[in-house]
């Protein structure tokens, strides 16, 4: 059962081949048996899962239910789940039982999906390797010594290891796509505003966007259809009809123009990754697409812009963790400042503190214009590069990450080196565009991801191209050894 995709599982549930209870039990059993090698889960919510599965089975029994009714999923521990610990990978929220569900959680619940647990992640989503989690690093199912990527590393590893058919993730600078690439699964970062951020713990509000992670693009289509929608509780959520994403994935690619930004194939890209991406481009070309070289001239500025804007927003977003109303509180504070400083000093890990300090600095008096305002200006230039590119092409293709998964500990000593692992994903968040990462082969046994970037709200197009590609290839169907 664990090898089946959502589409296959839904068929099995519909035909009565197995029940959601059986399916959920099987998932819980695999998590129990295999997660000790991965550390992909922070919380396993067995009781709630079985109750939800039972409810899904009753719905199925009456002949109702949709594509996700009874399908087990895992939520990144950044999404608030009512009555279930929501830690955000931090000691700060290790004791935080959320009093409400995030919009994404609500929607997937309403669609009948069964939450089996909460996945590990970089602390407050700040990281590209899952090594900043208070709950310890996640291991890549393809190589135990390698990182799974981050920040949605637990979700990626859990899906890749077939512990769950799908999981949610969030993407602020590549946090869905980069771990999807490094773990050999598919992940979609939707257009900014497509999925409500309500109940999704904020890292950088103008960049954060939740999205699905699964093994196939078709599964992503089912998931995003349930997750997207208008939510009046998020001012930045767009009021716009949700397409029936899964309905359009089979469309032919003839007439499609694909842009390859020359900046995404230059120095810094591992040759092995570059070759695999070129091969993937060849597949799409054979399916009828036109290939065109384009330029995104400000690409190299995306990472520095991001490391001004994201920490600035984060420094303010994380001020609410002060030990007063919920979460960690230091023991026996002497006075108010001591309460604040020790609570936050002890509750946050080193990378989070580093980013809060960078953000505090760039917003402080005398530096705002030089850093923050400047970064916002360059942000516009980066977005405008994409707008110009989409006048010529329908989809942009390139690598998701410059290398396959690196080893645990390899980049922890130099934050800037770590930040550069997101060099191809960050610009998409700055511009607010949708992008997809799908498996495109292996370099020395570790998965490599192909990134497809679309115009605003062109998720349908991305899913269509990704799905057609997966009809021609089987990279997404490979299973890591030990998890067959």
């Amino acid at each position, binding site marked *: 059962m664990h090898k089946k995709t959502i589409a296959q599982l839904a068929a099995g549930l519909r035909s009565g081949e197995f029940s959601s209870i059986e399916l959920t039990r099987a998932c819980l059993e695999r998590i129990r048996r295999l997660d000790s090698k991965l550390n992909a889960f922070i919380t396993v919510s067995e009781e709630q899962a079985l109750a939800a599965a039972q409810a899904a089975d009753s719905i199925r029994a009456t002949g109702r239910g949709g594509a996700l009714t009874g399908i087990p999923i895992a939520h990144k521990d950044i999404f*608030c789940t009512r009555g279930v610990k929501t830690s955000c990978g931090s000691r700060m929220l290790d004791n935080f039982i959320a009093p409400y569900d995030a919009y994404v959680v609500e929607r997937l619940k309403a669609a009948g999906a069964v939450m089996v647990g909460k996945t590990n992640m970089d602390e407050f989503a700040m990281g590209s390797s899952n090594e900043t989690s208070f709950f310890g690093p996640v291991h890549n199912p393809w190589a135990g010594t390698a990182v799974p990527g981050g920040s949605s590393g637990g979700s990626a590893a859990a899906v890749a290891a077939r512990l769950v058919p799908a999981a949610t993730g969030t993407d602020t600078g590549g946090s869905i796509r980069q771990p999807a690439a490094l773990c050999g699964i598919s992940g979609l970062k939707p257009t900014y505003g497509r999925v409500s951020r309500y109940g999704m713990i*904020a890292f950088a509000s*103008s960049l954060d966007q939740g999205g699905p992670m699964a093994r196939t693009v078709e599964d992503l289509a089912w998931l995003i259809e349930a997750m997207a929608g208008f939510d009046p509780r998020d001012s930045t959520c767009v009021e716009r009809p949700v397409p029936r994403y899964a309905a359009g994935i089979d469309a032919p690619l003839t007439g499609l123009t694909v842009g390859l930004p020359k900046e995404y194939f230059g120095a810094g890209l591992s040759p092995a990754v570059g070759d695999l991406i070129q091969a993937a481009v060849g597949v799409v070309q054979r399916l009828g697409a036109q290939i065109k070289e384009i330029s995104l001239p400000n690409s190299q500025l995306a990472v520095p812009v991001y490391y001004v804007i994201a920490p600035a927003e984060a420094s303010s977003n994380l001020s609410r963790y002060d030990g007063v109303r919920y979460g960690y509180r230091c023991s026996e504070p002497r006075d108010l400042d001591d309460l604040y400083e020790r609570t936050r000093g002890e509750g946050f890990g080193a990378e989070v503190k580093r980013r809060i300090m960078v953000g505090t600095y760039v917003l402080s008096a005398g530096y705002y214009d030089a850093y923050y305002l400047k970064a916002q200006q360059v942000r516009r230039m980066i977005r405008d590069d994409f707008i110009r590119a989409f006048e010529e092409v329908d989809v942009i293709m390139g690598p998701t990450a410059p290398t396959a998964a690196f080893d645990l500990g390899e980049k922890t000593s130099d934050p800037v080196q770590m930040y550069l692992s997101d060099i191809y994903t960050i610009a998409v968040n700055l511009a607010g565009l949708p992008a997809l990462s799908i498996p495109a082969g292996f370099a020395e046994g570790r998965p490599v991801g192909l990134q497809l970037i679309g115009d605003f709200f062109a998720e349908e197009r991305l899913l269509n191209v990704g799905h057609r590609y997966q009809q021609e290839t089987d990279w997404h169907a490979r299973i890591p050894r030990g998890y067959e």
Partner: protein
Amino acid sequence: MDWEAVIGLEIHIQLATKTKIFSGAATAYGAAPNTQACAIDLGMPGVLPVLNEQAVRMAVKLGLALDATIAPHSVFARKNYFYPDLPKGYQISQYELPVVTDGELNIELDGSVSKRIRIIRAHLEEDAGKSLHEGFEQVTAIDLNRAGTPLIEVVSAPDMRSAKEAVAYMKKLHSLVRYLEISDGNMQEGSFRCDANISVRSLGESRLGTRTEVKNVNSFRFVERAINYEIQRQIELLEDGGEVVQETRLFDTGRNETRPMRTKEEANDYRYFPDPDLLPLEIEPALIEGVRKTLPELPDAKRARFMLNYGLDAYDSTVLTASRALADYFEAVTAQCDDAKLAGNWVMGELSGALNKAGLDITEAPVSSEMLGVLLQRIKDNTLSGKIAKEVFEAMWNGEGGADTVIEQRGLKQLTDCSALEAIIEEVIAANPNQAQQYRAGKEKLLGFFVGQVMKATKGQAHPQLVNELLQKKLGA
């Protein structure tokens, strides 16, 4: 040396919306602690702000009334600082692009002189919660019910030159927001709070001196005292060769003095930046025009109309238009009795006196405008003398019913029946034969004695003029 004070006020006004500026929690005053603080007000993880339309409309209304510019595009920013009554660690406010700019407010000084005070800006922001220090030993207790209540902060130019002017400005703005029905203006409950920026300079100097900010002076009386104290303190400091330190001070109402604040403001690096959870506020002309249609007659226009239409003087017009409710009351009474002067005198005299004594607002007066109007009608149709009318008013105030009921029940109707009066007068003359004789002999000032005797006999209800006429006739005979 002669000194001049320079004063600017920042007034925080709570808007009378039903819900918070960024959440759907209620804003009612006096609820049990933290029962009106929802997840958004508490700064829980992952929750997001959505702007209250009514707060925007109220800001536009105030902007129009201040003859200000309504920004078509304004931006919410975060003001970052740590304080226990500020749950998110930042206050959502407006910084570089406020919703209202460049307005003005005219204040009246000594009745007829008026002065224009410029309004630099007015911006929307959220209120903080409350820290309770008293009644707790080692701790401070936090109630976040107030957190997220919509405020509009009105910032004046440093155009005021005395505590008196500052108070006049504050009263005028207070009256205006109540006219507009955008705030209840309740100062005890903190709906209308004032921070004063005060500096002094030698008379004739054009540069501004170093200012201090006196925080949270929340009554007209305290504002006057705090500003006067602060002006005097700064003058004495400078005259002794000292320097004014730019700082925030608190007014101690017990000691009638200001002292430096010990916490909160030390660093003052608020790291303002646009709130990424909120988008720019775009105000369409249609919204502005819609709000304009709801604008009531404003105090200045009403005052001018009172002078022109009712023939009232400047002072009376200012007093009667101080609040919309008072002005409405006066106009209703006038309509009923058709005598603006009489109505004005009664509203400013008996009625205001009774309200003051009872500590009541005009809206809580036990004597309605209609009741007062009927009473004044009874004076005009000679049913009552002015003196008896006061007795009737008191009875109405105490709940004995309308004027006619009171007159009936207490038998206070003025005696205007000639034959009945004649009989009484004859009795009085018969009872005082000596005085009658003296009067007839030419001691005419004894008429007053007889009038007094008749009024006594009629318990004051006789119509005085009629008594005069009849007495002269009878005594002359």
